[in-house]
């Protein structure tokens, strides 16, 4: 089963990706996996008809109880067979429906296949969550298929409408299913069915029914289905008549046997079903667009299906089972015929269809047979279903007569619109004196419809063929095998009488149609949920604009002020509420005082000066003082890194700030400054108190001690900090490298975007226009290799002595900086043949590979091996996989520096236009 679903998914995705060139052949390709699915399911029918269930299980997220559980029993095999079978027919039909040069055939075909796959997965899923996922997948594919002509706003609106309603219903269903899972403790559908709870809560029942009603377009949620007719006809024939709208009914069929007695289940099912059946039928009679007539007819038929599957008796479900198959066959056929008429005559409006003459004879016969089945005429599958339905409702212990009358009324309307469809499409136009002639359809075009109808005819004449599968579909009721006998003739009785009353009544209604206009108009006036939907959407729009207007002022300082004051006040509140004890730690020594005084003085300087360069220089002094603090704190690695970073960032600051105006004009207003100071003060006070409170608590040093203890035996290194970075916390470091890579790419993109056409390459041929100073040049030439070698030494010795990839890479960056100072960006480009992004990317790749390669050898991430090598100059070096990882860090950091020069380095003074 999984293989089938994967095949459908794969073919669908491939068609979307590269089906453009195939033209209509894309649909032939798409038909293939559906045919495979059909054959496979058919081959399992023997087993399933005996009441067995085909199962498959794959573990997914075990702790959450999520698994891929698939099952194929009677009812799911029935729907799956319909999905795959009608799918093949629709794909064949689509090859004729679309032109070879239509632009989206690949996409359409791929989406149809993906839909087919989701729908099959839905029928096969044995887990309520999987069921939900597939349910929404069909919603999404349906949305994309309806919105195929997305340049048309009406089509977009229709697609969105369908998406919103069915997805909302799906969410409601998920809620209901969650309640059920919580009550029963199982998400497996089979165990739910075999071990049902005594009753379901009213909330669960209502929510699940909401899902079913929205999907199956039941009143008052039906409004999306007529809109969905904006889709190309093959899509309507497949999704919106035969398959997707049956998903709701399928849900009812699954749950009715165990839930029909719970809470408001029956009331809701009957209310929704009857109103859909009647109002849908009434509205179908008023449509001039034949496709819309069929759409409302579908709403009506789905109402009947909802009742039959929903009330939860085996007899009614049997009737529903027959109707499900019959409806899929005749409705898909009729949609295909509307599509043929529409395409060949250019209209599907009853008032405009031109006479369809001899060439249409075959299509007309197929349409007539389908209409007969839809109307429930004897010797058709529709008749069998109606007879069974009357019988089942008649036997009902409650509300029998009333419901029976409703059913008969619905059937009468169905007969009436069936007659009307046939009459308006084929008979009426011939009576008009029109010279317009329709192009005859090719046989191939009509063949899929004919094929579906012949299946329907066979099923209608010999319904007994379905006996075993039908009884297998009723296992949910625990009735056992062999209980169902479908027959063409059920003898004389009330059902037969009702059938004939409905047929006669329907014909009368169809004939008297113009006189019945007032009654029909009533059907259209019934509040239909569409208004509510519209107002809801409008309300959401209005509210969100209001909220946006209030919350989103568009001013960065305002946002920053809100965020920062929250960051200050929340912890402060917590400290106050918790009455955290403030224990004064020691004041601090004189050495510390000196460093901190410099630190603070430069920080204040950076804050108050009004010149950009001065502020940046103050910031670097702060950074260097930080390095001093690191030194007295026993952190030489940090000190080294800080010095390197500070040097490089000063260079980058200079590169950018030289472009900007020297000072900050427009000093801020006193009020603004006061607010800023208040927030800054609040943040500072919170941090101060927090630091004092935090220092009063005992530290758990277990992790630190473990790092120290296992540094040599596990990490093969003596520098604990470096071992932690490249080994114990290596995965974390890998994440940080990706941040560096992303930031660097972003910087280059921001600085270079829009300059592609500028003559950036031109100047790289010429020597830099700036005059070069000989002594700087010489100094750079001497210093460059020395600093580079130094950086390599730091890299390789870092595992045992202060150093490592970060500081090594930064120092290598400093070497590059020296060259930049001597000769500008040209010099940098000339020295390093590798492009900056190559260095950057290979660094990340190297680290990622080192981290993950142990995985392929069956070890854990970053599991290091080690060996010692004695190299000239560099001395005894431990070559372990950690060193390779560190080499990746080195290159990534070096790449970052190169990228900074690439972004801000000298280029001709070109500007964006």
């Amino acid at each position: 089963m999984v293989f089938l679903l994967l095949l459908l998914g794969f073919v669908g995705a491939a068609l979307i990706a590269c089906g453009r060139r195939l033209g209509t052949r894309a649909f032939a390709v798409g038909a293939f996996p559906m045919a495979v699915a059909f054959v496979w399911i058919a081959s399992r029918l023997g087993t399933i008809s005996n009441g067995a269930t085909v199962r498959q299980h794959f573990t997914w997220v075990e702790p959450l109880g999520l698994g891929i559980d698939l099952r194929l029993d009677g009812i799911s095999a029935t729907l799956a067979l319909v999905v795959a079978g009608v799918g093949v027919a629709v794909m064949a039909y689509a090859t004729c429906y679309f032109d070879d040069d239509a632009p989206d055939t690949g996409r359409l075909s791929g989406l149809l296949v993906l839909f087919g796959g989701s729908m099959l997965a839905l029928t096969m899923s044995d887990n309520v969550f999987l069921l939900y996922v597939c349910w929404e997948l069909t919603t999404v594919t349906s949305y994309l298929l309806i919105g195929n002509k997305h340049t048309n706003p009406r089509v977009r609106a229709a697609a969105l409408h369908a998406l919103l309603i069915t997805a909302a219903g799906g969410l409601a269903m998920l809620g209901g299913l969650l309640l059920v899972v919580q009550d029963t403790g199982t998400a497996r559908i089979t165990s739910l069915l075999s071990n049902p709870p005594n009753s379901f809560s009213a909330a669960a029942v209502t929510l699940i029914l909401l899902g079913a009603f929205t999907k199956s377009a039941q009143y008052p949620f039906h409004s999306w289905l007529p809109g969905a007719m904006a889709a190309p006809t093959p899509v309507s024939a497949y999704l919106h008549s035969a398959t997707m709208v049956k998903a709701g009914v399928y849900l009812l069929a699954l749950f009715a046997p165990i839930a029909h007695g719970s809470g408001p289940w029956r009331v809701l099912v009957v209310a929704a079903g009857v109103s859909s059946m009647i109002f849908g039928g009434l509205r179908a009679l008023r449509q001039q667009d034949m496709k819309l007539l069929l759409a409302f007819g579908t709403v009506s038929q789905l109402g009947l299906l909802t009742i039959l599957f929903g009330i939860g008796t085996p007899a009614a479900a049997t009737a529903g089972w027959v109707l499900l198959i019959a409806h899929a066959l005749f409705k898909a056929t009729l949609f295909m015929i509307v599509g043929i008429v529409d395409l060949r005559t250019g209209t599907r409006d009853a008032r405009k269809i031109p006479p369809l003459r001899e060439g249409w004879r075959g299509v007309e016969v197929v349409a007539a047979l389908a209409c007969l089945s839809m109307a429930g005429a004897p010797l058709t599958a529709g008749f069998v279903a109606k007879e069974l339905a009357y019988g089942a409702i008649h036997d009902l212990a409650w509300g029998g007569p009333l419901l029976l009358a409703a059913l008969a009324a619905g059937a009468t309307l169905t007969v009436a619109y069936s007659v009307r469809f046939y009459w308006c499409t084929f008979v009426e136009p011939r009576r008009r004196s029109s010279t317009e002639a329709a192009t005859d359809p090719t046989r191939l075009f009509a063949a899929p419809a004919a094929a579906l109808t012949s299946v329907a005819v066979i099923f209608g004449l010999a319904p007994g063929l379905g006996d075993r599968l039908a009884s297998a579909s009723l296992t949910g009721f625990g009735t056992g095998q062999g209980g169902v006998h479908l027959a063409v003739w059920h003898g004389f009785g009330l059902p037969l009488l009702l059938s004939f009353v409905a047929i006669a009544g329907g014909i009368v209604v169809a004939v008297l149609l113009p006189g019945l206009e007032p009654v029909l108009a009533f059907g259209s006036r019934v509040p239909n949920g569409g208004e509510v939907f519209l107002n809801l959407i409008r309300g959401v729009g209005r509210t969100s604009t209001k909220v946006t207007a209030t919350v989103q002022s568009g001013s960065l300082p305002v946002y920053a002020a809100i965020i920062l004051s929250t960051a200050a006040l929340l912890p402060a509140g917590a400290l106050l509420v918790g009455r955290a004890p403030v224990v004064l730690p020691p004041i601090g020594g004189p050495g510390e005082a000196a460093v901190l005084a410099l630190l603070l003085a430069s920080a204040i300087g950076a804050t108050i000066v009004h010149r950009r360069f001065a502020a940046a220089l103050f910031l670097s002094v702060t950074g260097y003082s930080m390095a001093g603090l690191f030194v007295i704190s026993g952190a030489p690695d940090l000190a080294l890194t800080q010095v390197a970073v500070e040097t490089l960032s000063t260079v980058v600051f200079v590169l950018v700030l030289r472009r900007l105006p020297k000072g900050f004009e427009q000093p801020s207003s006193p009020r603004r400054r006061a607010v800023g100071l208040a927030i800054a003060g609040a943040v500072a006070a919170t941090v101060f108190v927090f630091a004092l409170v935090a220092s009063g608590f005992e530290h758990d040093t277990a992790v630190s001690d473990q790092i120290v203890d296992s540094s040599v035996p596990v990490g093969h290194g003596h520098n604990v900090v470096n071992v932690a970075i490249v080994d114990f916390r290596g995965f974390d470091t890998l994440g940080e490298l990706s941040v560096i890579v992303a930031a660097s790419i972003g910087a280059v993109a921001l600085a270079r975007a829009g300059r592609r056409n500028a003559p950036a390459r031109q100047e790289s041929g010429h020597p830099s226009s700036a005059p070069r100073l000989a002594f700087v040049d010489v100094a750079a030439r001497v210093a460059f290799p020395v600093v580079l070698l130094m950086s390599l030494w730091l890299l390789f010795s870092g595992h045992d002595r202060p150093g490592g990839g970060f500081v090594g890479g930064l120092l290598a960056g400093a070497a590059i900086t020296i060259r930049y100072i001597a000769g500008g960006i040209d010099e940098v480009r000339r020295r390093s043949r590798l492009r900056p992004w190559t260095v950057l990317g290979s660094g990340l790749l190297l680290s990622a590979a080192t981290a993950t390669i142990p995985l392929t050898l069956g070890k854990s991430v970053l599991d290091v091996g080690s060996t010692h090598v004695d190299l000239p100059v560099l001395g005894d070096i431990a070559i372990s996989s950690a060193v390779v990882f560190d080499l990746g860090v080195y290159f990534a950091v070096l790449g970052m520096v190169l990228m900074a020069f690439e972004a801000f380095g000298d280029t001709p003074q070109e500007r964006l236009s």
Partner: protein
Amino acid sequence: MTVMLAATAALLFGAGTYLLLQRKLSRIIIGLGLLTHGANVLLISAGRRGTPPIIGGSSTADFADPLPQALALTAIVITFGVTTLLLALAYRSWLLTDDDEVQDDVADRRVSTDDAVQDEVEDHQELIEWEELL
């Protein structure tokens, strides 16, 4: 942790916050730098002080806590990356407007002041189409 260190961290945070509230990107970037320094002071002073955690020299019992050091080290380098990215923003701003001032978002301003936006939402094309569909 000492009182002086706590005060330093607090002051760095305060100065950084004040700068973050400005409109010039270069001041914001400098503010972020100060804020990061403050965070690193907190990090590093949260651990035990001592000798450099390099095995072979002093006794491991005297070691400074290596864990916050490892955290701070990556933080320093990341800050460099972030600073570069923000400077690129300032650079871009200069390319487009000759300055690095962060302007108010015009579209956002319009939403709060202009009734026409409200009407625009009301008369959204999809809504009109829906009305006709239903």
